[in-house]
């Protein structure tokens, strides 16, 4: 057995999920408040820091409120964990787990860096280098519906149930637009391995920014229109899939109290919260990987350099995380700027507009590819 492979895989799994995604979730909850405060012209949480007054000092050390997520986590753990009498207990406990696990599982195929040179060996910075990358993500993400549906059903009361029903119909509807909008992208790359898709973008320009390598050819520029349509449909469908504003109908507080997690409290509620943010982070990661070049640095094809030097691999990881963070900011920006849709508007938009647009886009891309290749 190749112990190096086993060890590096274990480090990649634990490092990426527990030392990158989960702390990012915590930071996202702080960033969400800071961004909302900035957009609404407030200050936001800026007090929680190192509590120096406990040790007898005159003043606390505020650290711009960076310790806030830690305080939130402590609050969730210390709150009373209430299980109402009327719920179906087994499924009530199962639902939060089923929301969080798929959200974290999808990160397995996303390449979060190029190569890292460890002691002369090049290690690919992706947990599972599968040849079915995007399909795997969609498959696991489609399992995320169960958590929400079961939460709604197991709570055994009206508002959660309505929230669960809404969420499942919304997610099933937008899954179609999501899957179809990615087809043109795969047609252009002729590849289903996310790592190779990023390497191709590293050599020949990002899908949406073909400014170097072969990207400067008119063939690639002719494909910009269908790729742009794909990007818009994919991003909007991703908003709907992750139940983010303006599509957060399953937990729409003006109509459904808190939607599917109305009956949940303490850490079980926190699991829904974590799952939702993890899904948002990984959704951003997928968009960045497919359309915005993943870990690649603009204008500089550096994949080969990363195989021989150790610092380029780290730089690529930093580049990926920066892009993801920028996209997360976009998610938050939209949330605090746009009003919520009505449910019938949401369904009509999904079925009548995005579905047809994504389907037509497949044919448009095929047509352009046929003309370009000749």
């Amino acid at each position, binding site marked *: 057995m190749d112990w190096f492979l086993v060890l590096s895989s274990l480090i990649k799994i634990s490092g990426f999920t527990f030392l990158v995604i989960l702390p990012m979730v915590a930071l996202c909850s702080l960033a969400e408040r800071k961004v909302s405060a900035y957009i609404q012209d407030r200050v936001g949480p800026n007090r929680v820091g190192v509590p120096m007054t406990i040790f007898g000092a005159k003043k606390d050390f505020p650290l711009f409120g960076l310790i806030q997520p830690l305080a939130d986590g402590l609050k969730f753990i210390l709150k009373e964990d209430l299980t109402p009498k009327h719920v179906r207990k087994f*499924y009530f406990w199962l639902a939060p787990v089923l929301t969080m696990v798929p959200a974290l599982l999808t990160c397995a195929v996303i390449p979060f860096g190029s190569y890292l040179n460890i002691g002369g060996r090049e290690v690919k910075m992706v947990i599972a280098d*599968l*040849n*079915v990358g995007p*399909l*795997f993500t*969609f*498959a*696991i993400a*489609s*399992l995320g*519906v*169960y958590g929400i*549906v079961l939460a709604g*059903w197991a709570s055994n009361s009206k508002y959660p*149930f309505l929230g*669960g*029903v809404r969420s*499942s*119909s919304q997610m*099933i509807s937008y*899954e179609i637009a999501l899957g179809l909008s990615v087809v043109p992208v795969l047609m252009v790359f*002729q*590849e*289903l391995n996310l790592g190779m898709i990023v390497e191709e973008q590293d050599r020949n320009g990002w899908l949406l920014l073909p400014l170097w390598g072969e990207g400067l050819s008119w063939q690639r520029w002719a494909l910009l229109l269908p790729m742009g349509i794909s990007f818009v449909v994919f991003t909007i469908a991703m908003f709907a899939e992750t139940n983010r504003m303006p599509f957060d109908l399953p937990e729409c507080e003006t109509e459904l109290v808190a939607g599917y997690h109305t009956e949940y409290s303490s850490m079980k509620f926190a699991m829904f919260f974590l799952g939702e943010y993890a899904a948002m982070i990984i959704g951003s990661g997928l968009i960045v990987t497919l359309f915005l070049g993943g870990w690649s640095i603009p204008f500089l094809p550096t994949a080969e350099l990363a195989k021989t030097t150790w610092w380029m691999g780290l730089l690529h990881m930093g580049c990926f995380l920066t892009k993801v963070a920028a996209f997360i900011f976009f998610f938050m920006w939209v949330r605090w700027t746009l009003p919520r849709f009505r449910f019938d508007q949401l369904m009509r938009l999904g079925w009548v507009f995005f579905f047809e647009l994504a389907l037509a886009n497949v044919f448009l891309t095929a047509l352009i590819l046929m003309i370009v290749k000749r």
Partner: protein
Amino acid sequence: MPQPLFYLFVAVMLGFGAAVVLLRNPVSSALSLVVSFAGLAALYVSLNAYFAGVLQVLVYAGAVMVLFLFIIMLMDIREEQRRKINKVAVVGGAALVVGFVVQLGGVLAGYEAGRKPLDRVPLQLAEAAEARRAVGNVSPGITADLERGTLPDTKLVGEALFTRYHLQLQMVGVLLLVATVGVIVISRREDRVVSGSGE
């Protein structure tokens, strides 16, 4: 795949498959079927058929069963749980299972190629690539993948569907279209009757 993992996934698949029939709560049955599908998907993956495995999860566990669960949740579950066991159906079902297993055993016992363990039959990717080059290199992407030493199962499925089986694929497509149109027609007609009687 190491043998313990194979037995683990087989146990998951068969155990939860049995739970589908044995459990009284329809929601539990539906979810057991989902777990059973996950075990099946793992077995596909162990045979290098990543595409089939992912589709098993994406289509059956992720889409079909969600709709099933959706419908079950709208039913009255207590009534389902009170329903008495039909003895004739139980005996008939058990007999059917035994008959099927005997039949399957007979077929598998007669399959000579199956006697070789899977790990003694390596994938001959380089040879396959050469053979493809010899007949004119129809899909260069597949050949390139084979030469790199990876099995392009998704691309092979795609190639087979859109060249060899394209007529059958289109027939299935038309069939699905007919079913979809049929559903819309049926639901429309009922709608008109209801609104007509209301006026």
